[in-house]
């Protein structure tokens, strides 16, 4: 990211995660609401998750976010991330069916 404006914006958004200035947070929440599917898993997502595999596949170096190949370590299952809105690999961690999106760390229950 070479442009100074971009760096400034990125830094300010990073700080916003901490400070949560209300006016700016409202704009962020409005955008999230427009594109987020919400936390509750629909039947479509669950059906999608049921088709996931948890073993790495052969062939070359895996890129983070590759929806076709899970990361090598951990217990992974595939599901549609309500936050990203895309198919992602979710790592099962902890208790009670908790799983976390590889890309955005959004928590779902499988």
């Amino acid at each position, binding site marked *: *990211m070479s*442009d*100074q*404006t*971009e*760096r*400034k*914006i*990125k*830094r*300010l*958004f*990073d*700080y*916003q*995660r*901490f*400070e*949560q*200035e209300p*006016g*700016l947070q409202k*704009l*962020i929440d409005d*955008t*999230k609401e*427009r*594109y987020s599917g919400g936390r509750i898993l629909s039947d479509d997502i669950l059906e999608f998750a049921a088709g996931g595999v948890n073993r790495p596949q052969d062939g070359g170096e895996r890129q983070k976010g590759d929806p076709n190949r899970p990361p090598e370590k951990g217990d992974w299952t595939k599901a549609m991330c309500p*936050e*990203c*809105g*895309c198919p992602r690999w979710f*790592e099962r*961690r*902890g208790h009670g069916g908790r799983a*976390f999106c590889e890309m*955005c*760390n959004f928590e779902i229950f499988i």
Partner: protein
Amino acid sequence: MEIEEIYRNYHDKVYSYIRSRVNSAEDAEDICSNVFLKIQTRSEEYEKDKGAVSTWIYAITKNAVIDYYRVHRISEELPEEIVSDDELDRDLLQKETLQELSEALGHLSEEERDVIILHYYDNLSLRDIEKKTGMSYGQVKLRHNSALKEMKKFFLKKSASGRFSSYQ
């Protein structure tokens, strides 16, 4: 400000920030505890004239995350925005500048604003934004560029009136 008050006011913000950067919830809780321990032991170091307490706490939190990355030798590079520059942060990272970012976003169309938020806050690539929003990749790129142009103009105007003066 008493440590209990700081804990009450900032715990959720500190945890939320750390959790967005650290995969493990248990590690995030550990880091969060360490941050408040540092705040408690360093409370005499905080100097009011050097900036808001929130900026001071943010710096401690960010440095704690950087230390975590180093200790765990996480192979991916530290994201650029997390690299520590306390002097830069002290001037840039204030509530007022967040309000100005909010103003700048208010000058954009809804689609442009969405692209900026999804790209710079949610860290989605332009390709992912294409999939998420249903806009074509070309439209996403166009809106990204026009939004940045508009925001740069806004910041320059503000700079001319005294804000962001060291960054233009």
